[in-house]
C-alpha cells in the first residue's frame, strides 16, 4: 500500500482555502509578489494549474509565456497532481551513497531532488511542507535539523558561540545570551562609524565570493538611487553545504540583527530573505522571529527611537541552484526569469528593482552583530596568522563526525578532518575531499595538506567557497562521483550562456560514458578544451567553477578515468 498515502495524513493541512482572486488581491500589493503568490497557489492545490497561471498572468500582470517559462525553470513547481504532495528524495552526492536511491524506489510517486542541505543527517525527504529523514527501510521520521557538534577545539567561536544555548532561536533566548547588544551599540553610533568598524574587522563575503563586506555596504550607502535594499541570500543550494541552515534554524535572530545593522549602515529601508525551498520548517521559524522582532520595535518605523525605518520579508525560492547567484536571485525576486545578470552594473548600484542593494550571505550577516558587540579587533584575531575571522565548514561524507564546524581561517584541513571530526571511518583512508561543496572540485594526495583559507586552497587550483567539504574514502569511485557532480551542474545550469549550457552537458556525458570518445587522448583533449572554454568564458560562477571537477579529476585520478574508458570499450 502506498506509503505516500499514509504520509499525507501525517502532513499539516493546507494552510489556505482562499480563492485565486483573493490570493492575487493579497499579493498584488506586496513587494516582489510573484514567488509568494505562486507558492500560495502551489501550496493550496499542490501544483500550479493552467487556470492559476492564467489568473496570475492577468493579475500581476506578467506575460503568460514568460510566466509559464519561468515556472518550468524551478525544480519544485509542479504542474500536475500530486505535485508537491509527492515525496521528493535528496539524491545529492552524500545521500546517494547512503541509500537514497533505495528510498526513492520504495516510495510511491517519489521524485529526485538535488542536495537538500541535510548531508549531516542523510537522507532528507520532502513531502508537502515537511522534511523527513528516511531510514534505510524507507520509513520517514520528522527530525529537526541537527545542531553543530560541541566545539571540539580551544579556538573561540563567533557564530556558533551561543547557537547551542537552549531557546536561542527565540527572542528571549537570543537576548539572554547577549543578542541585539550589537544593534543597541551600533544605534549609538553613526552609520559611518559602523562602516568603518566593519572595514576594520576585515569581514568578507562568506557565501563564497569573499568580497569585503564593509566595502560593499559603503558602496550601497554612497549609491545615489533610492530606495535601498538589503537582501539576504539564504538560497543555500551548493551540494554539501548546510551551514546556513544551522544558523537559520537555531540562531535566526543573529541573521535578523545582521540585516538590521546592514540597513542602518547602508540606508536601506526594506529587506528580503530569499530562502531556499527545501527548508520549509525554517520558513515557519523565520516568520515567527520576524514577528517577535516587529513587536519588540526592532523592525518597522523609528527603530531604537531614531529616524531609522526598516522592515523585511521572506521570499521562498522554488528549487534552482542558480538562484544562489546574486543576479539570478534578484531576477527571481523580481518575478523575472532567473538568469544571472550581466555585470556591470553591480547590485550595489543596480540591484533589486534597479535600486542600490546589499546582497549578503546568511553567515556574513550573522557575524555582524557579534563584531559590533565585541569589536573589530576581536573578530580579526579569531583567524590564524594573516587570516581574519572564522568560517563555517559543512563537513560530510566519509568521516566519523560530520556536521557544521566553525573554524578559524587558516586551520589545517587535516586538523579538521582528523582531530575535530574523528578522521576516516574504521579501516578506511581518505581518498579525496571536495572544496566549496562541489564547485571547487577535488583535493587529494599532498593537496590535502592545505590550510582552510583562500590563498592556500587557490594555490592548489581550487577555492574555499561557501565552505562545504565532502569526504570520499578509498571505497569510492571518483569518476562516478565526478559524473554525478557534473550531472548536478548540467541539471542546474540555467541555460543562458553557451559554454555552460552545452559544456556541462558534454562533460556530464563524457564522465558517465554515455557519449564522447573512448580513446584517452581524444577524451582528454575534448574535456580539457571544454573545461578551459567554460572556465574562461562562462557568464557566471556556475560555468566557471564546474570544470574544477574535471580538471581536478584529470589531475589526481587519471588512471581511474582510463580504467573507466577501458571498461566502456569492453562493453559490447
Amino acid at each position, binding site marked *: 500500500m502506498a506509503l505516500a498515502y499514509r504520509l499525507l495524513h501525517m502532513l499539516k493541512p493546507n494552510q489556505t482555502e482562499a480563492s485565486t482572486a483573493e490570493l492575487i488581491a493579497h499579493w498584488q500589493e506586496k513587494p516582489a509578489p510573484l514567488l509568494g503568490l505562486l507558492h500560495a497557489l502551489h501550496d493550496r492545490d499542490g501544483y500550479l494549474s*493552467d487556470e492559476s*497561471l492564467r489568473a496570475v498572468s492577468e493579475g500581476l500582470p506578467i*506575460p*503568460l*509565456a*514568460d*510566466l*509559464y*517559462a*519561468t515556472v*518550468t*525553470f524551478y525544480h519544485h513547481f509542479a504542474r500536475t497532481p500530486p505535485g508537491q504532495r509527492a515525496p521528493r528524495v535528496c539524491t545529492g552526492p552524500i545521500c546517494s551513497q547512503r541509500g537514497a536511491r533505495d528510498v526513492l524506489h520504495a516510495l510511491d510517486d517519489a521524485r529526485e531532488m538535488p542536495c537538500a542541505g541535510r548531508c549531516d543527517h542523510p537522507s532528507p525527504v520532502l513531502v508537502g511542507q515537511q522534511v523527513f529523514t528516511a531510514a534505510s527501510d524507507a520509513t520517514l521520521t520528522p527530525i529537526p535539523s541537527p545542531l553543530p557538534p560541541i566545539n571540539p577545539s580551544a579556538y573561540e567561536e563567533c557564530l556558533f558561540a551561543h547557537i547551542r544555548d537552549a531557546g536561542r532561536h527565540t527572542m528571549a533566548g537570543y537576548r539572554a545570551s547577549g543578542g541585539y547588544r550589537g544593534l543597541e551599540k551600533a544605534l549609538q553610533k553613526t552609520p559611518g562609524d559602523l562602516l568603518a568598524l566593519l572595514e576594520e574587522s576585515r569581514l568578507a563575503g562568506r557565501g563564497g565570493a569573499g568580497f569585503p563586506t564593509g566595502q560593499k555596504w559603503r558602496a550601497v550607502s554612497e549609491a545615489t538611487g533610492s530606495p535601498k535594499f538589503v537582501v539576504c541570500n539564504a538560497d543555500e543550494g551548493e551540494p554539501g553545504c548546510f551551514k546556513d541552515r544551522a544558523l537559520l534554524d537555531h540562531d535566526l535572530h543573529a541573521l535578523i540583527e545582521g540585516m538590521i545593522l546592514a540597513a542602518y549602515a547602508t540606508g536601506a529601508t526594506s529587506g528580503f530573505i530569499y530562502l531556499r525551498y527545501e527548508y520549509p520548517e525554517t520558513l515557519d521559524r523565520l516568520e515567527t522571529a520576524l514577528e517577535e522582532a516587529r513587536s519588540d520595535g526592532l523592525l518597522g518605523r523609528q527603530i531604537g527611537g531614531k529616524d531609522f525605518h526598516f522592515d523585511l520579508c521572506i521570499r521562498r525560492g522554488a528549487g*534552482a541552484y*542558480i538562484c544562489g547567484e546574486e543576479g539570478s536571485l534578484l531576477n527571481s525576486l523580481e518575478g523575472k*526569469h532567473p538568469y544571472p545578470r*550581466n555585470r*556591470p552594473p553591480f547590485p550595489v548600484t543596480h540591484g533589486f528593482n534597479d535600486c542600490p542593494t546589499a546582497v549578503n550571505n546568511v553567515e556574513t550577516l550573522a557575524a555582524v552583530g557579534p563584531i559590533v558587540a565585541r569589536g573589530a579587533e576581536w573578530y580579526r584575531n579569531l583567524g590564524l596568522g594573516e587570516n581574519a575571522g572564522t568560517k563555517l565548514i559543512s563537513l560530510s561524507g566519509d568521516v566519523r563526525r560530520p556536521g557544521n564546524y566553525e573554524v578559524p581561517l587558516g586551520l589545517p584541513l587535516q586538523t579538521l578532518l582528523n582531530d575535530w571530526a574523528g578522521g576516516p571511518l574504521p579501516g578506511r583512508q581518505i581518498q579525496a575531499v571536495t572544496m566549496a561543496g562541489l564547485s571547487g572540485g577535488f583535493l587529494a594526495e599532498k593537496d590535502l595538506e592545505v590550510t582552510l583559507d583562500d590563498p592556500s586552497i587557490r594555490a592548489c587550483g581550487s577555492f574555499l567557497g561557501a565552505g562545504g567539504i565532502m569526504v570520499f574514502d578509498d571505497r569510492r569511485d571518483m569518476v562516478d562521483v565526478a559524473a554525478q557532480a557534473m550531472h548536478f551542474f*548540467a*541539471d*542546474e*545550469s*540555467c*541555460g*543562458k*550562456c*553557451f*559554454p555552460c*549550457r*552545452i*559544456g*556541462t*552537458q*558534454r562533460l556530464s*556525458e563524457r564522465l558517465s560514458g554515455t*557519449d*564522447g*570518445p573512448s580513446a584517452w587522448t581524444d577524451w582528454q583533449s*575534448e574535456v580539457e*578544451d*571544454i573545461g*578551459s*572554454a567554460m*572556465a*574562461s*568564458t*562562462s*557568464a557566471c560562477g556556475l560555468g*566557471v567553477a564546474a570544470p574544477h571537477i574535471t580538471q581536478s579529476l584529470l589531475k589526481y585520478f587519471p588512471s581511474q578515468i582510463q580504467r573507466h574508458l577501458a571498461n566502456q570499450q569492453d562493453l559490447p
Partner: protein
Amino acid sequence: MIQKSTTLTIDGAEVAFTEGETLYEVAQRARRPIPTLCYDPRLEPFGSCRLCVVQVEGVRNPVASCTTPAAAGMVVHTSTEAIEHHRTTLLELVVSENRQVDVDPLRGYASQELTTLVDRYQARTGRFAGAQSGTSHSEDDNPFILRDYDLCISCNRCVRVCAEREGDYAIAAGGRGFQKQITTEFDSILKDSSCTFCGQCVQTCPTGALADKKALRAADIEEPIEKTRSVCPYCGVGCAVDLMTKGEQLVGIQPAMDGPANEGALCVKGQFAFDFVQHRDRLKQPLVRGVDGQLHETDWDTALDRAAEGFRQVADKHGRHAIYGVASGRTPSEADYCMQKFIRRGYGTHYIDNCSRA
C-alpha cells in the same frame, strides 16, 4: 545632451568612444571582426553566446564585449590566441547540438550567421558528440513560421525580439540548462498563443531554426536569390522591405534592418501576404465590354482608343464637368500625379479625388 568622449586601446590602436557605448560597439567602429551569435544591434545586449569575449588587461577572465561598457584607459585585446581557441571550442560545441550547419538562406535574414562563423573558424563538425538539444514542432501547422528547433542554439534572439521589438511576448525560454526550449504559453502552437506572425523572430534567427515557410516553397528553384529594396504595399507606416526573387518569381520578403520607418520590423501582412502579386487572378490583358454586355480581352490600342473615345463623347455631350477621376492611395505617386493632371490638364476642372474618404 553632449556626451563626453574619451579613449581606450583596442588591439594597439587608440579609439575614442562615448559614454554608454559597449566594448563591442567601439570595436565595431574600429573594424575589429569580433564574432557573435546572440547579438542583434536592435536588441538589448544579452551576453549568452560568449563568442564576443575579449581580454581586458588587468581583468582575470575574458569579458563579453557586448555587455561590457567601455571605460577610459582600458587596454583591450580582441583576438588573442587563447580567445580564438575558446571561440573555436564554443563554435564546435554549438555545432554539436545542431542537426546541420548548412541552411537555406531563404529561411531568414540572419539564417547564415552560424554557417558563416563555422567556416571562418573552420570549426570541426563531429567533435563533442552528444545529445541534441532542440525539439522541432512539426505539429505546428501554421503556414508561415517553421519551428525547426533541431537547429536552435538557444541564443534567445527570437524571445528578445518578440518582447523588446514587437511587444507580443508570445514566446519565452522554458526549462533550463541543456533542456531549455523556446516555448509558448503552455507549449501551445503559435496560433493559440499571443503570436501575431510578424515574422521578426524568423528574421533574427542566426541558424534558420525559425524559418519562413512561404519562402522555403522556392527552395528547389535553382536560380540565385536576388534582393530588391522597396516599401511594403499595405498600411501607411511605410516599412522598407527587400523583395526576394529567384529569376522572375517573387519568393519572399525580408524587412530592411535599416528601414527608416520600421528598423527591421514588419507585420503579418507585410511579411507574408506578398503572393497576390503573382496570383493567377491577375489581369494580364486589357478588357473591353462587347455588344454582348460581357468583358472581352483585347489589345492595348483597341482598349486605349475605346477608353479615350468614351471620354471624348461624354465631354462633347455633357461638358467637361461630366468627367471624374478617382486616384488611388495604393499606387505610386506618379499614378496619382498623372490622374490629377489628366483631369486638370484635360478638362480644366478639379473633379478629382482619391480613396482617402473610405
